[in-house]
């Protein structure tokens, strides 16, 4: 299977504090990798660097050969990320958010039917015209995940995706991830959930004191 994401010598420091020691990491198509580690070990920093939201102090990230910073639009077209606490525009409804993201990624074709199907699948159809600040944490996580699913991607990065999901949604979520793996997506999950790890992980990365290792 081809390597979709390649991070080389990736490190990040907050001033004198090194949150992430230089690390190499690859994500392969059709594989789910789990990132685990204690609180404060640098998981979120690594995820933010891989997602292109935080500039690493050193190192490069390539997605299908495109450098995440030098060829940003091309790399980000292939990359989807959901943080542990997704934030939304206060003035736009869930439906409008989905439309905005789909069209911004040039994935407007068949948007309406795709959005309807996803919203129904995740139980958000009735709340599609609700402003998202009224969403519960679980609903926010589901909507955050839909932002990734509404458009095509090759790499999916998820930070604590099941922390506020109910049991039924968690099961549906696991099935979704397994299906995405089957479709050839490279997925990296940062999680403390042992069930998620045992049920899905093809590979496990362990991060402690900013040092990455393969478990």
């Amino acid at each position, binding site marked *: 299977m081809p390597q979709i994401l390649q991070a080389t010598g990736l490190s990040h420091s907050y001033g004198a504090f090194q949150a992430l020691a230089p690390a190499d990491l690859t994500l392969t198509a059709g594989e789910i990798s789990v990132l685990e580690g204690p609180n404060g070990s640098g998981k979120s920093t690594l995820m933010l660097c891989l997602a292109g939201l935080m500039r690493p102090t050193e190192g490069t990230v390539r997605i299908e050969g495109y450098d995440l910073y030098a060829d940003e639009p091309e790399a980000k077209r292939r990359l989807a990320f959901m943080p542990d606490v997704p934030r*939304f525009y206060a003035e736009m409804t869930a439906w409008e958010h989905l439309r905005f993201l789909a069209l911004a990624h040039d994935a407007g074709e068949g948007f309406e039917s795709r959005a309807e199907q996803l919203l129904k699948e995740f139980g958000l159809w009735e709340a599609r015209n609700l402003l998202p600040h009224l969403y519960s944490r679980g609903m926010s996580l589901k909507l955050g995940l839909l932002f990734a699913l509404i458009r095509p991607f090759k790499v999916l990065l998820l930070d604590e995706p099941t922390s506020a999901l109910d049991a039924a949604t968690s099961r549906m979520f696991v099935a979704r991830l397994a299906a995405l793996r089957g479709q050839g997506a490279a997925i990296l999950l940062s999680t403390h959930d042992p069930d998620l790890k045992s049920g899905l992980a093809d590979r496990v990365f362990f991060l402690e004191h900013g040092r990455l290792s393969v478990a």
Partner: protein
Amino acid sequence: MDPVWTLFSRRTFAQLAYWLSVLGYNLRDRTRTNRFYFVYFCIFWLIWITAVFALLGASSANFVRSLQVASPSALAVLIGVFSIVVWSWIQLWQATGRSPFVFSEEDAYLLCQTPVSRRKVGLAWFLQSWIGNALPFAAGAIVISFTLVELTLQHGVDYAHLISYLSTSLRALAIVLPLQMAFQAFSWGIGALRLRRSWRSGAWLLGWLRPAVFVLGLILLVGIFLPGLRAVIMTLLSFPLEAAFAGSMTPVGWLIRAALDLAYLGAGLLFLILCSDKIHMGRAAQETQLHAAVQLARGSWNFSLADILEHRQRLGTTHAPSRLPARPGVWMLIWKDAIQSLRSLRAGQALGWIFVFGLGLEIFLLSNFPVQMVMGALWTIALGGLTTERLRTDLARWWLLRSLPLRANDLLIAELGLSCGLGVLLGWLALAVSGKPPLLGAFAAVLVPILVAISALAAAHDILSHSKTRNLMSPSIAEENVARQNIEGVIRALLSGAVPMGMMCWSLTHPAQIGWALAAVPLALMIMIFNLRTVGLAYRWME
């Protein structure tokens, strides 16, 4: 002790302790030295407050003298009547739209679910709110009293007049505060009536409360022009208020007026107590939780949080999908900006843009070069703040913004585009109104968009260079973590815009030297491109 009064006393004490600590006294410190300090604290503030009121009284006395009013005490009564009528009507209008009893989220869970006496809750919440509402009336009554005393003095103020100042103020407070309390109690009573649980016989009445208050407002407005109606309104209120401000009055006359004042208060409180026996506290909590959070944020000087909460309150809960036409790619940022702008439109924003227009007008109309430059500096600063508002709110959703597959410069241009467009239109409008000669006007018209862009980009650079990804992704309120334009940004904006702005202003004041405006265009363009490049780098290299 009763739980409602326990809560009331704790909250009042906490509020008192907070304000005393703001003024410099720690109420919770029980040491002996702190008690001595309390004496000093009281004397200091008493003298300070008296001095401030004497100053205000002296200024307003001079103003009244300049108006050559025949009877200042009649004017004082009129001001009192007007203030109470307008304020009461506003209170009444608010009480018929939303519960006057404001319950926080904690109250909603801990108090509103319990079978405590609704009447006690009604009265306790009323008293708590009254303290804050009464303060401006108390201050107003004291200023008017000081003014009236000042007007009777022929040879300035001395210590002997202090007693006169204090006694007149106390007399006014003794009348004004119960009257204001009575009217607030009446408004809250109406609010309590609206919140009554299972009031079947009077349910039809509730739907008419708000229209009735609206009609009452119209009657009061019309009353200004109808002497008969005005006399009725005036008599009902001016009679007791004469006891507060009228100069010469017999003790019996004063007592009769004071008794009427107290009768109003008694009636108001009785009405409130009777109406609040069955208030639906759950419904009241539902209506006011967000309002309570806003009050708390304002009370702790967190105005940006209060603005965010108020913004959410105004937005409501749902919206039908926008019908604005959308195009894929970077255009979606304009589409998003248009939806956000349309849904968050408010008068306060318009004031900012009117200010920018006014400054633009002054730049083009004035013929004094230094003053023009000062106006230009203010225009640059004001524009920088207004044009980057959208960028700031979007930075609070960093994970969405930065995930878009767009080039940094395209994204930044789209982020600043709409507001810069408005700035340019206002600049052109100001230029058109000023009626400059065609050639000079044409150069200025070319320079306006470039200067707008320079200001916006300088402010954006400052915001971006002070923002940190870690803060933008923090789980607390996102907007709170976005940097604002600070002094560095202001200096940068002024330095970027000063030379081309100066060259334009010089040409405007010296039309013969139009070459300066011509030379300003390429220079401004170069600065704009430099600013765009640095903003792009700040965005892409954000740590």
